């Protein structure tokens, strides 16, 4: 219970404390004192401007008058107050201008001017002032030709405008970035500027920051004088070799608007003070040469794969797919991002499985020059084509660099990616044959083991498809099938076509009757012999010619034979054989055996001849 209460109460108290601290800081004052010119002639007026900027009410502020009795006389003061809201915060400022007249020649220091607020004292910085004696010649100068004022002006310019080379460090390691800023300091009004040269940073790799629009100006008080400063150009240099190296100067041509010196008593003076009426003079500003000392990187603890990258980096690796088919491509992406010289950085080639075909990586870099330091990323895209199936491991990808913050070498390691390669369906692009010779030597893959299967042996060169059995198998069915079809067609004809059937039967029937006739002849039965002989012939002809039973008369048959185009000779012998049969059957019952034999032979030959013709 108690602890819970404390827990509850602590955050509000904490917040309150912070708020109070904020109030306290708001009460703080910024006190700056400026002088219009550090070099003043005796009896000339100079002004000291005291600016007090703070968050609270400032009416009560009454700075102590700087006591400059030693060398100047106070002539009067001028006050102005201002307040504004910046980001919801009220800011008030009070500007007091003190007018003095220089009285004594020499170098003096204007002491800090203290400002008291709520018991606290804030003070400005001391200002140096040089009081010269050259006041008298002034009128004569003015009366001279216009050359003098210009000289005056140019010496004026030297003091009032200059270019400085500012480096953030002077002792750096090889590869460590050095930020070089070219800053213009001006107490004059610069209307325009341009770079006259591009310094040759021979021993450095340079990377220029991108400047957005016109350079940002800020006020700076140097030796009590108010200067406007602007960074015209910012370059990051990466040293590439050790030793003392200098940064060459940068030249800038600045257009400065000058005010003509006029008689102060001129009533139009204030009017012509208007910058509109000034004239513009171009001045060449040259920055100073800066020398840097470049140290070599320590050798202690340097990783073997270190390739000169200095800065701070992070690395990510990824593959687009972990499971792939042979001959399909995988993309391995390695991204190194960070601060440092991305451009000169190089990544050692990772080790890939031997059966992977590796193409040269696609390297892209993106450099961001807009921020406070050079940042960027370098992307390596490796195209890998696995040529064999299996499970493979891509070893971790390492990248070594010198960490500037910790002043030691660091090695990043990412990865150990497992890739499963499945067998692709393309066997054509006979994968490994495309590999180069050196890659082949690396292939630690082995041949597959012998086959232990005990299959029957066949005589060399003997193939089933060369054997007779094969050709029989091939031709057998079609032959059987064909003959089946012919047989069936024949059967069909017999069943449906009487003429065909009778014609096919004719020989058979004739043979049967001839046989009976033959036995009759042997038995000596002349009548039966001749009648059978005649019937065999007539029936044969009738069947062949498909003549009706009733029309089986000799004359009809002869007519039909003639009609079918049988030659006369054959028809004549057909007729004579039949006549002889009839004659023998009825008129001569006892015919000699020789006659019967001739008749039998005659009928036989006749049937054979008719069979051929019909």
């Amino acid at each position, binding site marked *: 219970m108690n602890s819970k209460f404390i827990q509850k109460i602590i955050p509000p108290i904490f917040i309150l404390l912070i708020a109070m601290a904020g109030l306290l800081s708001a009460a703080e004052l910024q006190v700056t004192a400026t002088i219009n010119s550090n070099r003043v002639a005796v009896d000339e007026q100079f002004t000291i401007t005291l600016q007090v900027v703070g968050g609270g009410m400032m009416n009560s502020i009454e700075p102590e008058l700087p006591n400059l009795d030693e060398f100047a006389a106070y002539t009067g003061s001028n006050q102005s107050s201002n307040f504004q809201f910046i980001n919801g915060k009220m800011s008030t400022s009070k500007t007091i201008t003190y007018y003095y007249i220089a009285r004594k020649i020499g170098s003096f220091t204007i002491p800090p001017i203290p400002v008291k607020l709520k018991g606290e004292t804030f003070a400005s910085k001391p200002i140096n002032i040089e009081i010269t004696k050259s006041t008298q010649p002034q009128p004569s100068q003015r009366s001279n030709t216009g050359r003098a004022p210009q000289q005056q002006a140019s010496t004026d310019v030297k003091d009032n405008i200059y270019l400085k080379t500012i480096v953030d460090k002077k002792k750096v390691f090889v590869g460590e970035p050095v930020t070089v800023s070219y800053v213009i300091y001006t107490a004059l009004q610069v209307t325009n500027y341009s770079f006259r040269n591009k310094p040759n940073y021979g021993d450095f790799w340079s990377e220029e920051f991108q400047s957005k629009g016109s350079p940002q100006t800020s006020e700076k008080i140097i030796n009590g004088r108010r200067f406007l400063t602007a960074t015209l150009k910012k370059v990051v240099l990466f040293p590439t070799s050790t030793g003392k190296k200098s940064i060459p100067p940068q030249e800038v041509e600045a257009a400065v608007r000058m005010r003509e010196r006029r008689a102060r008593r001129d009533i139009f003076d204030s009017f012509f003070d208007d910058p509109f009426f000034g004239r513009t003079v171009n001045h060449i500003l040259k920055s100073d040469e800066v020398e840097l000392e470049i140290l070599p990187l320590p050798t202690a603890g340097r990783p073997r794969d270190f390739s000169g990258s200095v800065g701070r980096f992070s690395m990510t690796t990824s593959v687009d797919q972990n499971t792939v088919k042979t001959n399909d491509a995988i993309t391995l992406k390695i991204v190194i991002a960070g601060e440092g010289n991305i451009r000169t950085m190089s990544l050692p080639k990772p080790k890939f499985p031997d059966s992977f075909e590796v193409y040269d990586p696609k390297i892209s870099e993106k450099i961001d020059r807009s921020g406070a330091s050079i940042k960027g990323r370098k992307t390596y895209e490796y195209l890998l084509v696995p040529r064999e199936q299996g499970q493979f491991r891509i070893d971790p990808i390492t990248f070594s660099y010198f960490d500037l913050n910790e002043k030691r070498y660091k090695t990043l390691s990412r990865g150990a990616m497992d890739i499963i390669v499945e067998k692709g369906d393309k066997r054509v692009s006979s994968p490994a044959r495309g590999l180069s010779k050196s890659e082949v030597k690396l*292939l630690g893959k082995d*041949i597959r083991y012998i086959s232990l*299967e005990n299959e029957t042996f066949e005589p060399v060169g003997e193939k089933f498809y060369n054997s007779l059995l094969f050709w029989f198998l091939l031709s057998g*069915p079609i032959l059987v099938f064909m003959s089946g079809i012919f047989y069936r067609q024949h059967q069909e004809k017999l069943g449906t076509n009487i003429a065909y059937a009778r014609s096919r039967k004719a020989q058979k029937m004739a043979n049967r009757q001839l046989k009976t006739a033959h036995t009759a002849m042997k038995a000596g039965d002349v009548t039966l012999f001749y009648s059978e002989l005649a019937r065999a012939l007539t029936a044969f002809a009738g069947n062949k010619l498909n003549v009706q039973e009733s029309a089986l008369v000799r004359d009809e048959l002869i007519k039909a034979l003639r009609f079918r185009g049988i030659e006369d000779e054959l028809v004549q012998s057909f007729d004579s054989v039949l006549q002889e049969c009839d004659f023998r059957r009825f008129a001569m019952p006892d015919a000699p055996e020789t006659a019967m034999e001739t008749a039998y032979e005659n009928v036989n030959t006749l049937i054979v001849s008719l069979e051929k013709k019909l």
Partner: protein
Amino acid sequence: MKKRLVFIALFAMLATQTLADEATTYFVKGNKAYESGDFAAAIANYEHVISLNEENWHLYFNLGNAYFRSNNLGRAILNYERAFKLAPENEDVQFNLEMAALQTTDRIPLPPKEAYLVLLENWFNSPSFSFLLYTTLILYATFILGWALRYFVPAITGAPFYQFFVVTALVLFLFFASIFSLRWYNQATKQFGVILEKEVNVTSSPTTGATELFILHEGTKFQIKEQASQWLRIRLRDGKTGWITAESAGRI
């Protein structure tokens, strides 16, 4: 007379039986030798099987392995190719053939071919002979039976898809039969060989001292165009031709 014929036939059968048994024995012996790492003995046993005029793809495959282990690349490839000829569909054979081919020195650049042509050729060459053969025979039988059916069961002609079935069987049969015949023709007419010697000079004519055209190294496959006594006229995949001595190469 008849009895004598039967006796001869029986004897022949027995002889082939014992031959096959002997082949198996030596094959198993070779495998044992290979397992124990005695590749020379394995080679001797396997070669003995071949000398008995017996073969199958296992034998050539194992022999190829034994030669490969004995660093005889040319003979390894020769035997793998022989195994591949008998069993082109076998993955192990393909793999080892490819592995061995990787080690060869000669790279014969092929003239660029249209992708579909390569695919077609590949498709045409990938099925094994026996597969093509049996598919053809089955389709043939299907077609014949289907066609014959209409004569024995006339009602079938009215059945749906009957016509389609028979025509499909016929078309497929003709298709497979033509592929088979083409392959058969190719195999019967095209002879291939493999270089067996470490380095072979290919010359412009079949005589000693003829102009050397180019050099081939062991394991390179080529087509044998013709043979003239002890010389072979060879043709490489890229179209180069020349003569080599017959003993420097082996016929697949």
